[in-house]
Protein backbone atom coordinates (compact mmCIF):
# COMPACT_ATOMS: atom_id res chain seq x y z
CA UNK A 1 0.00 0.00 0.00
CA UNK A 2 1.14 3.49 -0.79
CA UNK A 3 1.45 6.31 1.67
CA UNK A 4 2.09 10.02 1.24
CA UNK A 5 2.48 10.71 4.98
CA UNK A 6 6.28 10.07 5.11
CA UNK A 7 6.86 12.60 2.32
CA UNK A 8 4.49 15.06 4.03
CA UNK A 9 6.54 14.70 7.18
CA UNK A 10 9.85 15.03 5.36
CA UNK A 11 8.60 18.18 3.64
CA UNK A 12 7.47 19.57 6.99
CA UNK A 13 10.95 19.00 8.42
CA UNK A 14 12.42 20.70 5.37
CA UNK A 15 10.48 23.88 6.09
CA UNK A 16 13.33 24.60 8.49
CA UNK A 17 15.42 27.50 7.19
CA UNK A 18 18.57 25.35 7.18
CA UNK A 19 17.07 23.14 4.49
CA UNK A 20 15.47 25.98 2.52
CA UNK A 21 18.61 28.11 2.33
CA UNK A 22 21.23 25.36 2.38
CA UNK A 23 22.79 26.57 5.61
CA UNK A 24 22.86 23.17 7.34
CA UNK A 25 25.96 21.24 8.24
CA UNK A 26 26.87 18.54 5.75
CA UNK A 27 25.64 15.62 7.88
CA UNK A 28 22.32 17.40 8.42
CA UNK A 29 22.00 18.06 4.67
CA UNK A 30 22.63 14.36 4.11
CA UNK A 31 19.84 13.54 6.57
CA UNK A 32 17.42 15.92 4.82
CA UNK A 33 18.17 14.09 1.56
CA UNK A 34 17.66 10.73 3.27
CA UNK A 35 14.26 11.79 4.62
CA UNK A 36 13.11 13.07 1.22
CA UNK A 37 14.26 9.90 -0.50
CA UNK A 38 12.59 7.66 2.09
CA UNK A 39 9.40 9.73 1.82
CA UNK A 40 9.25 9.45 -1.94
CA UNK A 41 9.38 5.62 -1.97
CA UNK A 42 5.83 4.99 -0.61
CA UNK A 43 4.57 7.88 -2.79
CA UNK A 44 5.71 5.97 -5.86
CA UNK A 45 3.48 3.11 -4.72
CA UNK A 46 0.61 5.54 -4.19
CA UNK A 47 1.01 7.00 -7.68
CA UNK A 48 1.31 3.50 -9.18
CA UNK A 49 -1.93 2.44 -7.49
CA UNK A 50 -3.73 5.56 -8.72
CA UNK A 51 -2.51 5.10 -12.30
CA UNK A 52 -3.42 1.42 -12.28
CA UNK A 53 -6.90 2.18 -11.03
CA UNK A 54 -7.47 5.04 -13.48
CA UNK A 55 -6.12 3.16 -16.50
CA UNK A 56 -7.83 -0.09 -15.55
CA UNK A 57 -4.65 -2.16 -15.88
CA UNK A 58 -2.27 -3.29 -13.17
CA UNK A 59 1.31 -2.68 -14.26
CA UNK A 60 4.66 -2.58 -12.52
CA UNK A 61 5.38 1.08 -12.83
CA UNK A 62 8.95 2.37 -12.77
CA UNK A 63 10.09 5.85 -11.78
CA UNK A 64 13.29 7.40 -13.06
CA UNK A 65 14.59 9.69 -10.34
CA UNK A 66 17.75 10.54 -12.27
CA UNK A 67 16.21 11.26 -15.63
CA UNK A 68 17.76 14.75 -15.60
CA UNK A 69 21.18 13.12 -15.92
CA UNK A 70 19.98 10.61 -18.56
CA UNK A 71 19.80 7.67 -16.16
CA UNK A 72 16.71 5.47 -16.51
CA UNK A 73 17.38 1.70 -16.55
CA UNK A 74 13.84 0.63 -17.66
CA UNK A 75 14.02 2.65 -20.88
CA UNK A 76 17.48 1.28 -21.72
CA UNK A 77 16.27 -2.31 -21.76
CA UNK A 78 15.52 -3.76 -25.20
CA UNK A 79 12.00 -4.81 -24.18
CA UNK A 80 8.96 -2.72 -25.18
CA UNK A 81 7.80 -0.26 -22.57
CA UNK A 82 5.08 2.25 -21.94
CA UNK A 83 5.43 5.90 -20.98
CA UNK A 84 2.74 7.45 -18.81
CA UNK A 85 2.65 11.24 -18.88
CA UNK A 86 0.61 12.79 -16.09
CA UNK A 87 -0.29 16.46 -16.46
CA UNK A 88 -1.12 18.27 -13.21
CA UNK A 89 -2.09 21.49 -15.04
CA UNK A 90 -5.68 22.48 -15.74
CA UNK A 91 -5.00 22.72 -19.46
CA UNK A 92 -3.70 20.35 -22.14
CA UNK A 93 0.08 20.34 -22.58
CA UNK A 94 2.44 19.15 -25.26
CA UNK A 95 5.75 17.95 -23.92
CA UNK A 96 8.88 16.66 -25.61
CA UNK A 97 9.74 13.38 -23.88
CA UNK A 98 13.44 12.46 -23.64
CA UNK A 99 14.47 9.02 -22.45
CA UNK A 100 17.89 7.37 -22.43
CA UNK A 101 17.84 4.29 -24.65
CA UNK A 102 20.28 1.73 -25.93
CA UNK A 103 21.09 2.11 -29.60
CA UNK A 104 18.48 1.24 -32.16
CA UNK A 105 15.41 2.41 -33.93
CA UNK A 106 12.14 2.87 -32.11
CA UNK A 107 8.46 2.88 -32.89
CA UNK A 108 6.41 5.18 -30.66
CA UNK A 109 2.63 5.01 -30.61
CA UNK A 110 0.21 7.44 -29.01
CA UNK A 111 -2.85 6.45 -26.90
CA UNK A 112 -4.89 5.99 -30.09
CA UNK A 113 -2.31 3.65 -31.61
CA UNK A 114 -1.03 6.18 -34.13
CA UNK A 115 2.69 6.31 -34.83
CA UNK A 116 4.36 9.41 -33.42
CA UNK A 117 7.48 10.91 -35.06
CA UNK A 118 10.56 10.11 -32.98
CA UNK A 119 14.31 10.67 -33.09
CA UNK A 120 17.31 9.12 -31.37
CA UNK A 121 20.05 11.58 -30.38
CA UNK A 122 23.55 10.43 -29.56
CA UNK A 123 24.83 12.65 -26.75
CA UNK A 124 28.48 13.65 -26.51
CA UNK A 125 30.36 11.77 -23.82
CA UNK A 126 33.87 12.08 -22.44
CA UNK A 127 36.52 9.86 -24.06
CA UNK A 128 36.47 6.30 -22.72
CA UNK A 129 32.87 6.53 -21.49
CA UNK A 130 29.92 4.73 -23.00
CA UNK A 131 27.88 6.84 -25.42
CA UNK A 132 24.38 7.77 -24.30
CA UNK A 133 21.50 7.89 -26.75
CA UNK A 134 18.20 9.59 -26.04
CA UNK A 135 14.84 8.87 -27.61
CA UNK A 136 12.77 11.97 -28.32
CA UNK A 137 9.10 12.19 -29.13
CA UNK A 138 6.39 14.77 -28.63
CA UNK A 139 3.66 13.72 -26.21
CA UNK A 140 0.38 15.33 -25.37
CA UNK A 141 -1.47 15.03 -22.06
CA UNK A 142 -5.00 16.25 -21.27
CA UNK A 143 -5.83 18.72 -18.48
CA UNK A 144 -5.43 17.06 -15.06
CA UNK A 145 -5.03 13.72 -16.76
CA UNK A 146 -2.60 11.39 -18.39
CA UNK A 147 -1.67 9.73 -21.69
CA UNK A 148 0.09 6.43 -22.27
CA UNK A 149 2.55 6.06 -25.13
CA UNK A 150 4.08 2.75 -26.14
CA UNK A 151 7.70 2.39 -27.27
CA UNK A 152 9.02 -0.64 -29.15
CA UNK A 153 12.54 -1.21 -30.36
CA UNK A 154 12.75 -2.20 -34.00
CA UNK A 155 15.60 -4.26 -35.48
CA UNK A 156 17.88 -1.75 -37.18
CA UNK A 157 17.83 -3.61 -40.49
CA UNK A 158 14.38 -2.07 -41.02
CA UNK A 159 15.15 1.60 -40.41
CA UNK A 160 12.16 2.73 -42.45
CA UNK A 161 9.85 1.15 -39.90
CA UNK A 162 10.11 4.36 -37.91
CA UNK A 163 8.13 6.24 -40.48
CA UNK A 164 5.61 3.55 -41.22
CA UNK A 165 2.07 4.71 -41.09
CA UNK A 166 -0.18 3.06 -38.59
CA UNK A 167 -2.84 0.79 -40.04
CA UNK A 168 -5.64 0.42 -37.49
CA UNK A 169 -6.88 -2.86 -39.02
CA UNK A 170 -3.65 -4.67 -38.22
CA UNK A 171 -3.36 -3.37 -34.72
CA UNK A 172 -4.11 -5.11 -31.47
Amino acid sequence: SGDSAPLNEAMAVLQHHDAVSGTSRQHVANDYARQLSAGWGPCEVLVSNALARLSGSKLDFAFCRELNVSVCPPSRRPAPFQVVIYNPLGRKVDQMVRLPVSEGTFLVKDPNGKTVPSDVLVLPSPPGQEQTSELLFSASAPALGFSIYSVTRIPSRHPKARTQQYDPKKSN
Partner: protein
Amino acid sequence: RQVLAIENEFIQATFDPDTGLLMGIRNKEQNLVLPMSQGFFWYQASTGDKESSQASGAYIFRPERPQPLPVSRWAQVRLVKTALVQEVHQNFSAWCSQVVRLYPGQRHLELEWTVGPIPVQDDWGKEVISRFDTPLKTEGQFFTDSNGREVLRRSRNYRPTWRLNQTEPVAGNYYPVNTRIYITDGDVQLTVLTDRSQGGSSLRDGSLELMVHRRLLADDERGVGEALLESESGQWVRGRHLVLLDSARNAAAGHRLLAEREVLAPQLVLALGRGVPYRPG
Protein backbone atom coordinates in the same frame (compact mmCIF):
# COMPACT_ATOMS: atom_id res chain seq x y z
CA ARG B 1 33.45 30.63 -39.52
CA GLN B 2 29.76 30.69 -40.32
CA VAL B 3 27.43 32.06 -37.66
CA LEU B 4 25.81 29.10 -35.93
CA ALA B 5 22.07 29.36 -35.56
CA ILE B 6 19.22 27.30 -34.25
CA GLU B 7 15.66 28.30 -34.98
CA ASN B 8 12.05 27.22 -35.08
CA GLU B 9 8.94 29.02 -36.27
CA PHE B 10 9.07 31.47 -33.30
CA ILE B 11 12.68 32.01 -32.22
CA GLN B 12 16.15 32.18 -33.68
CA ALA B 13 19.29 32.00 -31.53
CA THR B 14 22.69 32.81 -33.01
CA PHE B 15 26.16 31.96 -31.74
CA ASP B 16 29.45 33.74 -32.25
CA PRO B 17 31.63 31.63 -34.59
CA ASP B 18 34.80 32.79 -32.81
CA THR B 19 33.76 32.18 -29.22
CA GLY B 20 30.86 29.74 -29.46
CA LEU B 21 28.86 31.97 -27.08
CA LEU B 22 25.23 32.91 -27.56
CA MET B 23 25.23 36.28 -29.34
CA GLY B 24 21.61 37.05 -30.12
CA ILE B 25 17.98 36.07 -29.93
CA ARG B 26 15.27 36.98 -32.41
CA ASN B 27 11.56 36.75 -31.73
CA LYS B 28 10.33 36.00 -35.25
CA GLU B 29 6.64 36.55 -34.45
CA GLN B 30 7.17 40.12 -33.28
CA ASN B 31 10.34 40.76 -35.26
CA LEU B 32 12.34 41.65 -32.15
CA VAL B 33 16.09 41.23 -32.19
CA LEU B 34 18.26 41.38 -29.08
CA PRO B 35 22.04 41.10 -29.38
CA MET B 36 23.48 39.50 -26.27
CA SER B 37 26.34 37.60 -24.81
CA GLN B 38 25.74 34.80 -22.34
CA GLY B 39 28.44 33.02 -20.44
CA PHE B 40 29.54 31.68 -17.07
CA PHE B 41 31.61 33.64 -14.58
CA TRP B 42 32.73 33.15 -11.01
CA TYR B 43 33.17 35.48 -8.08
CA GLN B 44 36.14 34.85 -5.87
CA ALA B 45 34.71 34.36 -2.38
CA SER B 46 35.97 36.75 0.27
CA THR B 47 37.66 35.33 3.33
CA GLY B 48 37.61 38.75 4.99
CA ASP B 49 39.53 41.94 4.24
CA LYS B 50 40.60 45.16 5.95
CA GLU B 51 37.08 46.60 5.58
CA SER B 52 35.48 43.66 7.33
CA SER B 53 36.42 40.22 8.56
CA GLN B 54 33.19 38.83 7.12
CA ALA B 55 33.85 35.80 4.89
CA SER B 56 31.54 34.50 2.20
CA GLY B 57 29.79 31.40 3.53
CA ALA B 58 26.57 29.42 3.68
CA TYR B 59 24.58 32.44 4.94
CA ILE B 60 26.58 35.27 3.41
CA PHE B 61 27.48 36.10 -0.19
CA ARG B 62 30.49 38.41 -0.19
CA PRO B 63 32.76 38.42 -3.23
CA GLU B 64 36.39 39.53 -2.90
CA ARG B 65 36.04 41.96 -5.80
CA PRO B 66 33.05 43.19 -7.82
CA GLN B 67 34.25 41.87 -11.18
CA PRO B 68 33.67 38.16 -11.73
CA LEU B 69 36.16 36.11 -13.74
CA PRO B 70 35.00 34.24 -16.86
CA VAL B 71 34.99 30.45 -16.58
CA SER B 72 36.17 30.61 -20.17
CA ARG B 73 36.07 33.27 -22.88
CA TRP B 74 35.03 30.70 -25.45
CA ALA B 75 33.25 27.39 -25.64
CA GLN B 76 33.81 24.27 -27.67
CA VAL B 77 30.54 23.79 -29.51
CA ARG B 78 28.71 20.94 -31.14
CA LEU B 79 25.57 21.49 -33.18
CA VAL B 80 22.77 18.92 -33.31
CA LYS B 81 19.85 19.42 -35.66
CA THR B 82 17.03 16.95 -36.15
CA ALA B 83 13.37 17.34 -36.99
CA LEU B 84 12.44 17.24 -33.29
CA VAL B 85 15.18 19.27 -31.65
CA GLN B 86 18.00 21.70 -32.34
CA GLU B 87 20.80 21.93 -29.79
CA VAL B 88 24.10 23.68 -29.38
CA HIS B 89 26.33 21.87 -26.87
CA GLN B 90 28.78 24.33 -25.31
CA ASN B 91 31.72 23.08 -23.31
CA PHE B 92 33.34 25.89 -21.30
CA SER B 93 35.67 23.88 -19.11
CA ALA B 94 36.03 20.50 -17.42
CA TRP B 95 33.44 21.62 -14.85
CA CYS B 96 31.08 23.87 -16.81
CA SER B 97 28.97 23.09 -19.85
CA GLN B 98 25.62 24.01 -21.31
CA VAL B 99 23.11 22.84 -23.92
CA VAL B 100 21.09 25.56 -25.67
CA ARG B 101 17.95 23.88 -26.95
CA LEU B 102 14.97 24.63 -29.12
CA TYR B 103 12.02 22.32 -29.80
CA PRO B 104 9.46 22.90 -32.58
CA GLY B 105 6.57 25.10 -31.46
CA GLN B 106 8.46 26.41 -28.43
CA ARG B 107 8.42 30.16 -27.78
CA HIS B 108 11.36 30.12 -25.38
CA LEU B 109 15.02 29.16 -25.53
CA GLU B 110 16.08 26.46 -23.07
CA LEU B 111 19.55 26.66 -21.49
CA GLU B 112 20.44 23.49 -19.62
CA TRP B 113 23.60 24.14 -17.61
CA THR B 114 25.82 21.65 -15.83
CA VAL B 115 28.28 23.04 -13.30
CA GLY B 116 30.64 21.22 -10.96
CA PRO B 117 32.44 19.82 -9.22
CA ILE B 118 33.86 23.32 -8.69
CA PRO B 119 37.64 23.05 -8.38
CA VAL B 120 39.13 24.66 -5.29
CA GLN B 121 42.71 23.40 -5.46
CA ASP B 122 43.79 27.03 -6.01
CA ASP B 123 42.42 27.80 -2.51
CA TRP B 124 39.80 30.17 -3.89
CA GLY B 125 36.17 29.66 -2.98
CA LYS B 126 34.05 30.17 -6.08
CA GLU B 127 30.50 31.42 -6.64
CA VAL B 128 29.45 30.65 -10.21
CA ILE B 129 26.96 32.74 -12.19
CA SER B 130 25.34 32.64 -15.61
CA ARG B 131 25.27 36.17 -17.02
CA PHE B 132 23.35 37.68 -19.93
CA ASP B 133 24.70 40.98 -21.28
CA THR B 134 22.49 43.00 -23.62
CA PRO B 135 22.36 46.61 -24.87
CA LEU B 136 18.99 47.21 -23.19
CA LYS B 137 18.85 50.58 -21.40
CA THR B 138 17.34 49.42 -18.13
CA GLU B 139 18.20 52.50 -16.04
CA GLY B 140 19.30 50.58 -12.97
CA GLN B 141 16.13 48.55 -12.66
CA PHE B 142 15.24 44.88 -12.83
CA PHE B 143 12.42 42.67 -11.61
CA THR B 144 12.30 39.50 -9.51
CA ASP B 145 9.47 37.42 -8.04
CA SER B 146 10.96 37.32 -4.57
CA ASN B 147 9.46 34.89 -2.09
CA GLY B 148 6.99 33.46 -4.57
CA ARG B 149 4.74 36.48 -4.32
CA GLU B 150 4.25 39.24 -6.87
CA VAL B 151 7.04 40.38 -9.15
CA LEU B 152 8.82 43.31 -7.51
CA ARG B 153 10.76 46.17 -9.09
CA ARG B 154 14.37 46.28 -7.85
CA SER B 155 16.53 49.37 -8.21
CA ARG B 156 20.29 49.15 -8.00
CA ASN B 157 21.78 50.57 -4.79
CA TYR B 158 18.36 51.61 -3.55
CA ARG B 159 15.77 50.54 -0.99
CA PRO B 160 12.27 52.00 -1.22
CA THR B 161 11.81 52.48 2.55
CA TRP B 162 15.17 53.76 3.83
CA ARG B 163 18.27 55.65 2.71
CA LEU B 164 20.74 52.94 1.77
CA ASN B 165 24.45 53.18 2.43
CA GLN B 166 25.61 50.54 -0.03
CA THR B 167 28.72 48.77 1.26
CA GLU B 168 28.52 45.63 -0.87
CA PRO B 169 28.16 46.60 -4.55
CA VAL B 170 27.49 43.02 -5.68
CA ALA B 171 25.84 41.18 -2.79
CA GLY B 172 23.91 44.31 -1.75
CA ASN B 173 22.12 44.18 -5.10
CA TYR B 174 21.39 40.45 -5.10
CA TYR B 175 17.78 39.34 -4.58
CA PRO B 176 16.03 35.98 -4.27
CA VAL B 177 14.62 34.65 -7.53
CA ASN B 178 12.01 31.95 -7.08
CA THR B 179 10.75 31.51 -10.61
CA ARG B 180 11.77 34.49 -12.75
CA ILE B 181 13.91 37.59 -13.23
CA TYR B 182 13.59 40.11 -16.04
CA ILE B 183 14.96 43.33 -17.45
CA THR B 184 13.21 45.72 -19.81
CA ASP B 185 13.77 49.05 -21.54
CA GLY B 186 10.02 49.65 -21.75
CA ASP B 187 9.76 48.22 -25.26
CA VAL B 188 11.62 44.91 -25.14
CA GLN B 189 11.76 42.50 -22.23
CA LEU B 190 14.24 39.71 -21.56
CA THR B 191 12.87 37.22 -19.03
CA VAL B 192 14.73 34.26 -17.54
CA LEU B 193 12.73 31.59 -15.70
CA THR B 194 14.52 29.32 -13.26
CA ASP B 195 13.75 25.70 -12.36
CA ARG B 196 14.68 26.34 -8.69
CA SER B 197 15.21 29.26 -6.35
CA GLN B 198 18.44 31.13 -7.02
CA GLY B 199 20.03 34.48 -6.27
CA GLY B 200 19.98 37.03 -9.07
CA SER B 201 20.76 40.61 -9.97
CA SER B 202 21.39 43.19 -12.65
CA LEU B 203 24.65 44.89 -11.75
CA ARG B 204 24.92 46.91 -14.98
CA ASP B 205 22.26 48.24 -17.30
CA GLY B 206 21.22 45.54 -19.77
CA SER B 207 22.88 42.82 -17.74
CA LEU B 208 21.19 40.00 -15.82
CA GLU B 209 22.84 37.29 -13.75
CA LEU B 210 21.83 34.24 -11.73
CA MET B 211 23.99 32.32 -9.29
CA VAL B 212 23.98 28.63 -10.22
CA HIS B 213 26.47 27.01 -7.85
CA ARG B 214 28.98 27.86 -5.11
CA ARG B 215 31.76 26.15 -3.21
CA LEU B 216 33.49 27.92 -0.35
CA LEU B 217 36.48 27.30 1.85
CA ALA B 218 35.74 29.53 4.85
CA ASP B 219 32.95 29.58 7.44
CA ASP B 220 30.98 32.84 7.59
CA GLU B 221 30.63 32.49 11.39
CA ARG B 222 26.87 32.88 11.30
CA GLY B 223 26.17 29.65 13.12
CA VAL B 224 26.63 26.76 10.74
CA GLY B 225 30.18 26.25 11.91
CA GLU B 226 31.58 24.76 8.71
CA ALA B 227 32.43 25.96 5.21
CA LEU B 228 30.06 25.32 2.31
CA LEU B 229 32.37 22.63 1.04
CA GLU B 230 31.06 19.20 0.18
CA SER B 231 33.33 16.34 1.07
CA GLU B 232 35.36 14.53 -1.59
CA SER B 233 35.04 15.98 -5.10
CA GLY B 234 32.03 18.24 -4.50
CA GLN B 235 28.59 18.52 -6.01
CA TRP B 236 27.69 18.40 -9.66
CA VAL B 237 24.58 20.47 -10.42
CA ARG B 238 22.34 20.53 -13.47
CA GLY B 239 19.51 22.98 -14.02
CA ARG B 240 17.63 24.92 -16.66
CA HIS B 241 17.05 28.55 -17.52
CA LEU B 242 14.18 29.33 -19.87
CA VAL B 243 14.73 32.53 -21.83
CA LEU B 244 11.92 34.61 -23.32
CA LEU B 245 12.33 37.63 -25.56
CA ASP B 246 9.13 39.56 -25.93
CA SER B 247 7.67 43.02 -26.22
CA ALA B 248 7.16 44.53 -22.76
CA ARG B 249 3.44 44.73 -23.53
CA ASN B 250 3.05 40.98 -24.20
CA ALA B 251 5.74 39.55 -21.92
CA ALA B 252 3.61 38.80 -18.86
CA ALA B 253 1.26 36.46 -20.74
CA GLY B 254 4.26 34.49 -21.94
CA HIS B 255 6.21 34.14 -18.70
CA ARG B 256 3.18 33.47 -16.51
CA LEU B 257 2.00 30.54 -18.61
CA LEU B 258 5.52 29.18 -19.00
CA ALA B 259 6.22 29.41 -15.25
CA GLU B 260 3.04 27.43 -14.53
CA ARG B 261 4.23 24.73 -16.91
CA GLU B 262 7.63 24.67 -15.27
CA VAL B 263 6.35 24.46 -11.69
CA LEU B 264 3.61 21.95 -12.54
CA ALA B 265 5.61 20.03 -15.13
CA PRO B 266 4.26 16.73 -16.47
CA GLN B 267 5.43 13.65 -14.55
CA LEU B 268 6.77 10.61 -16.35
CA VAL B 269 6.21 7.05 -15.22
CA LEU B 270 7.36 3.98 -17.14
CA ALA B 271 5.94 0.48 -17.31
CA LEU B 272 7.56 -2.47 -19.00
CA GLY B 273 5.64 -4.42 -21.61
CA ARG B 274 3.22 -3.50 -24.32
CA GLY B 275 0.32 -3.16 -21.90
CA VAL B 276 -3.33 -2.74 -22.64
CA PRO B 277 -4.22 0.12 -24.97
CA TYR B 278 -5.54 3.02 -22.93
CA ARG B 279 -7.79 5.74 -24.24
CA PRO B 280 -8.58 8.85 -22.19
CA GLY B 281 -12.32 8.30 -22.92
